[in-house]
């Protein structure tokens, strides 16, 4: 790729990702309303699409208040981390045969590292707020994300064993003979659950838990700093959906009557809708239930999945 093309890809990816995150606010509200027999926002513009514009303008013009008791530097820094780490993760995703920002040979490890960085935004945000609810949310968030990260990594190793590569482009190429959802259905399930916990989306929104902890780690945030957490969450949904598609559903692979990018977007969209459906239908588990489920069921299951995959790969 020439330098010009390179910048074009970076700009395009950034533009699409940020706009998707904003559009998801509208999509989620409309989809939730659809599943709850309501209409949702349908007044501003066609299908209420301009609600995105109104929300953005509102967020920009809200008072950007820093509590006097907060640790100011960390307080400002925390929302930057979540957006930056998610955006960095997007660099390794192949959207189409030659459309990816960084063709890293350790792509999967980079993704895991960046998603671990996301924990810092929650912990730092909750700590700097100097508020008991924020701190409780941050503690929950840290332990949830760290423990779910363990078998998130382990579940991905099945894919690595099958494809023999950490490079996402090569993983997609290796799926030409068949998508990894079939041999790795257990791994897919574990990765999906861990991904939901990683983006702390419902039903695993325990760090926020608005019915228990006000708004959890971002209780004290307002204006565009809150907006960064908000956008970070929606970009996280997009990221996990595109990772699921890339690792288990063949990425941009698909019948030739549609271009590869469209296939990628379509598959990702299905998983984004699954995230929203989960939010519409699932109750939030208790904190100890979440930990028990993670360590006692999903962790051994992911180890078993990895060992069985490795054994089959060795024998065949």
């Amino acid at each position, binding site marked *: 790729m020439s330098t010009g093309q390179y910048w074009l890809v970076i700009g395009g990816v950034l533009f699409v990702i940020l706009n998707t995150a904003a559009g998801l606010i509208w999509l989620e509200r409309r989809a939730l309303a*659809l*599943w*709850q*027999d*309501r*209409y949702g926002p349908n007044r501003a513009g066609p299908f209420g699409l301009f609600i995105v514009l109104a929300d953005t303008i509102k967020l920009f013009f809200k008072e950007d208040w820093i509590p006097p008791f907060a640790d100011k530097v960390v307080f400002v820094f925390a929302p930057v981390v979540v957006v930056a780490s998610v955006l960095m993760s997007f660099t390794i995703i192949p959207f189409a045969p030659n459309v990816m920002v960084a063709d890293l040979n350790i792509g999967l490890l980079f993704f895991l590292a960046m998603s671990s960085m996301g924990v810092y935004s929650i912990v730092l945000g909750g700590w700097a707020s100097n508020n008991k609810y924020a701190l409780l949310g941050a503690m929950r968030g840290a332990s949830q994300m760290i423990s779910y990260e363990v078998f998130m990594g382990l579940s991905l190793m099945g894919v690595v064993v099958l494809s023999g590569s950490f490079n996402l482009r090569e993983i997609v190429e290796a799926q030409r003979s068949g998508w990894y959802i079939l041999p790795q259905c257990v791994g897919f399930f574990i990765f999906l659950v861990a991904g939901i916990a990683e983006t702390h989306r419902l039903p695993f929104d325990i760090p926020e838990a608005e019915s228990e902890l006000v708004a959890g780690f971002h209780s004290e945030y307002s204006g565009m700093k809150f907006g960064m957490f908000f956008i970070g969450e929606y970009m996280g949904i997009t990221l996990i959906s595109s990772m699921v598609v890339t690792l288990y559903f063949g990425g941009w692979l698909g019948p030739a009557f549609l271009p590869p990018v469209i296939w990628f977007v379509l598959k990702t969209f299905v998983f984004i809708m699954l995230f929203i*459906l*989960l939010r*519409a*239908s*699932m109750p939030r588990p208790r904190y100890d239930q979440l930990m028990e489920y993670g360590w006692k069921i999903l962790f051994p299951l992911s180890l078993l999945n990895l060992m069985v995959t490795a054994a089959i790969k060795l024998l065949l």
Partner: protein
Amino acid sequence: MLSLLHSMWLVFLHMFHKRETYQYPEHKAPLPARWRGRIALTRDPDGGERCVGCYLCAAACPVDCISLQATEAEDGRRYPLFFRINFSRCIFCGFCEEACPTYAIQLLPDFEMAEYNRQNLVYEKDDLLINSQGKYPGYNYYRVAGMSIQGKDKGEAEQEEPPVDIKSLLP
């Protein structure tokens, strides 16, 4: 696990259900006849005011939003000199309607009373009086009550016996 998937499926099926929302300004929800909304003062079949200024509504009101002053006309009928309801306080509980002995004060199925200026929510008697008998057509307090007014003495009301002559010994 299966029950979670089942509930997800059931929620997904709601996609094809009818939506419950009334698109309000375009489609108004049907209000039942006894819906407790805007308060009005009704008139009797002859077009006179039903209110006799007994203050029972003001006494029953839990938020003290009714204020009135009774006075008497030359023919002996009582009526309110002024009658004021502060709708910024009113909670539409309907106690005034229950307390009213003459069916004068009634709550109507209408809630679209929003104002930009708070002072406009204070309704005077002119605003409250409606040209209707409300929920009790044909009812006229002075025609069924034993009270004597000009042109109708005691015992002349509908279904009323003439008063007992306390100075006579005859049965």
